[in-house]
């Protein structure tokens, strides 16, 4: 009887997030895809296959693949030595540098795109290299984002690896290079593969960066879906690409889940060594990486402080206006307020739903249904945010659900995008609670709610706060879905930035720079607070 009641309670609890996912994710995505497959009330799979045969689609697919592969490779090349320096050596300022490395990852994609363009524009500091609008620049920007994923994921593995294993090899006669090749790298392999697969996923679904930097020459699947839906109104092609992307990304996620392994618990509390002369190459490489990470940001800040030849806060003062030639309908400051409000609502929604899901998937036992639940809520990672946004537009615009004019439209969409990250942040912490602690509490007379309050919540409250901050930051920077849904008279900050850089005039450009700095600073502040809370826990995925 008790068991039966327990099952009913679990099912009821699962119903809430499942209903939200069905209504605000599956339904819109299905609606969007359906429009493509059933253009005039007739199911026409032939049209979809025809799309996949187009030469332009081939070019897009090829670019998506190789830019993601190159971005992943570059992230690894820059990230691995940095992971070593920041996680296996001890020197003053190391913790600050660890925080610096994370900053790019949480920056809104639009900001990164803008920062890179500013850096390599013909008038910019690196204008002489002629990289503006080149694929090299896009790959560099992709790596810029993802170096931190490599550093965090591999660094955590590296940190928990017992150095004595390498010492044993050295004592047996292995040179430092042989130790690296025969002991260290094999032991790090799960971490490296896991980081690489996640980075590849992020690179291949990048939207804001490719849209702002690719121009007309380069498009990946994500930006192509955007162009097809908004410019060419070719919904069949957009749907075809969406489905293809969903299949490939789901495959990648399954693969990533398979190779994903938590780093082994640290076995020694040994003090990390201070750098020696032999570490000079690694430290130089790390310094170079940090410079590469900081250069676009520094260039962005510099550009925001300049109007033509004059330096000053002119661009920041202009944020209270609607820009030159009234480029915007509302001042940037108002958009910032909108962004913060939206992010607050979206983060709350994502936290509520994500915590319920995390609670359910972290219960011991449960087997397949729980694994499935876990997987289902990772789906938003695999579906183009553009598809979600457009799906909202085409499905939630009529009864029974007419949200077109609701102020909840944008936050709900963003909450769906942030949901997997919330689950990924909270679930591992709940899972790490030894179930015997719950059993001990229960045996001492604690009811299920009391167990939750005295065992799970104390273990997870940091993760909950961190997840809330995470959701907030993701929502602040969200651009893919929001670009469809935000109304012109009530836009969010990333949307405003994108609009400003599309308008002529030094004033609008300067405002875009200043707005990017403000957005970046806000997001970074939130993420650094989160970083402090999470302590040394594992990476995003």
């Amino acid at each position, binding site marked *: 009887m008790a068991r039966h009641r327990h099952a009913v309670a679990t099912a009821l609890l699962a119903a809430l997030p499942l209903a939200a996912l069905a209504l605000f994710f599956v339904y819109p995505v299905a609606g969007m895809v359906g429009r493509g497959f059933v253009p005039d009330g007739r199911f026409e799979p032939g049209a979809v296959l025809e799309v996949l045969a187009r030469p332009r689609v081939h070019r897009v697919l090829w670019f998506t693949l190789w830019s993601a592969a190159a971005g992943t490779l570059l992230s690894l090349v820059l990230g691995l030595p940095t992971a070593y320096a920041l996680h296996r050596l001890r020197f003053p300022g190391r913790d600050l540098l660890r925080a610096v490395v994370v900053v790019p990852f949480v920056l809104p994609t639009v900001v990164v795109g803008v920062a890179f363009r500013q850096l390599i524009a013909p008038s910019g500091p690196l204008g002489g290299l002629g990289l503006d609008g080149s694929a090299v620049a896009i790959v560099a920007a992709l790596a810029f984002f993802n170096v931190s994923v490599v550093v965090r994921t591999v660094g955590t593995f590296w940190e928990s690896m017992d150095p004595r294993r390498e010492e044993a*090899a050295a004592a047996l006669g292995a040179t430092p290079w042989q130790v690296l090749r025969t002991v260290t790298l094999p032991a790090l392999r799960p971490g490296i593969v896991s980081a690489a697969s996640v980075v590849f996923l992020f690179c291949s679904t990048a939207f804001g960066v490719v849209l702002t930097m690719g121009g007309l020459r380069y498009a990946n699947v994500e930006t192509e879906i955007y162009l097809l839906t908004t410019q060419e109104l070719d919904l069949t092609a957009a749907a075809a690409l969406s489905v293809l992307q969903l299949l490939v990304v789901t495959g990648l996620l399954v693969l990533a889940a398979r190779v994903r392994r938590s780093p082994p618990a640290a076995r020694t509390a040994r003090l990390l060594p201070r750098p020696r002369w032999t570490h000079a190459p690694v430290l130089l490489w790390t310094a170079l990486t940090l410079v590469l990470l900081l250069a676009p940001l520094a260039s962005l800040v510099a550009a925001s402080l300049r109007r033509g030849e004059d330096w000053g806060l002119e661009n920041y003062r202009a944020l209270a206006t609607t820009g030159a030639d009234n480029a915007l309908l509302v001042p940037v400051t108002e958009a910032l307020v909108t962004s913060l409000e939206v992010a607050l609502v979206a983060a709350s929604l994502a936290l509520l739903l994500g915590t319920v899901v995390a609670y359910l998937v972290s219960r011991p036992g449960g087997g397949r249904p729980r694994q499935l639940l876990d997987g289902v809520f990772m789906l938003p990672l695999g579906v183009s945010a553009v598809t979600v946004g457009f799906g909202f537009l085409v499905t939630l615009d009529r009864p029974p659900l007419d949200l077109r004019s609701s102020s909840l439209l944008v936050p709900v969409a963003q909450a769906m995008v942030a949901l997997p990250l919330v689950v990924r942040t909270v679930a591992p912490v709940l899972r790490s609670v030894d179930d015997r602690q719950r059993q001990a509490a229960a045996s001492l007379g604690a009811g299920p709610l009391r167990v939750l309050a005295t065992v799970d919540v104390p273990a997870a409250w940091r993760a909950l706060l961190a997840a809330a901050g995470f959701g907030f930051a993701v929502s602040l920077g969200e651009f893919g879905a929001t670009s469809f849904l935000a109304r012109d008279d009530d836009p969010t900050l990333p949307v405003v930035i994108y609009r400003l850089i599309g308008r002529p005039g030094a004033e609008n450009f300067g405002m875009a720079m200043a707005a990017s700095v403000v957005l970046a600073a806000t997001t970074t502040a939130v993420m650094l607070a989160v970083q402090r809370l999470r302590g040394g826990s594992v990476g995003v995925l």
Partner: protein
Amino acid sequence: MALRVEGLSVRFEGTAVVDDVDLGLAAGSVLAVLGPSGCGKSTLLRTIAGLERPAAGRVLLEGRDLARVPTHRRGFALMFQDGQLFEHLDVAGNVGYPLRLRRRGRQERRRRVAELLDLVGLGGYDARLPTTLSGGERQRVALARALAVEPRLLLLDEPLSALDRGLRERLAADLHDILRAAGVTAVLVTHDQEEAFAVADTMAVMREGRLVQQGSLADVWAHPVDGWTARFLGYAEVLDGDRARTFRRLVAPDASWEAVALRRSALRLDPRGSLEATVEEARLTPELVRLRLDVDGLGVLPGVASPAAVVRAGERVRVSLDPARTAPLPGPA
């Protein structure tokens, strides 16, 4: 002397972890460095291996200063408490690892790995993965790997401490025989005096970074240098002051020592014994009865009785004293 350590000091953050240590070790012999955890013995071992840098002093092998020789060129082998096997390699891969580093041919490698696995009693384990091995098997593999290239010096860091008691005793005996069979020079650090006695020929006792005593096993055991060392070696009681003088009058009236260490079995229940005592407590263990005795004139001391004896608390008994189970201390207690 194969290995010499001269005036070696190692500092961490300004604190001397190893403080002015001198050691010598003859070729083919096994030295146990014995000390409680945190005494610096592992750091001493790591410094000999070249993994830590000395703040002062030298490590010499066959007269050659090793200061500028990096770990991997010293030709040593290091074996840790938990083996540190390479999890991605099978047993044969682990044992053959140093052979592959030295580019030995496949044939030779296979032959040598088989030979070594036989030596450590794991013949036929070649294809097993480390994760499928028990703790004792892992340590045997680690030992075979360490012996694979006939190290000039084998360094063992608490090699048996992670194992449970029965296994530890068996493996300690095996380790003793294997080291002799391989004719290897070895330094073993441990906090367990039984492990040291089972495996080594000579012993050095370390306390708070300093070497307090060094000598043959029998010598160190029979003549601990002070009360702390005696207690650490397993002596049950150390007497000093008036009690030591009273005790001295009983066992060696002509001697001049001021402190003495007693093993638990120094006082034994014996109807013909020369001392009288009151039993304060009697506790049965598998091999004997452990007693706490209030000995007339000497106060409370430990003692033993055979398990067949019937002793109760409060009883008056006679006890005999075995001077061979006591050790006069040259220094203060």
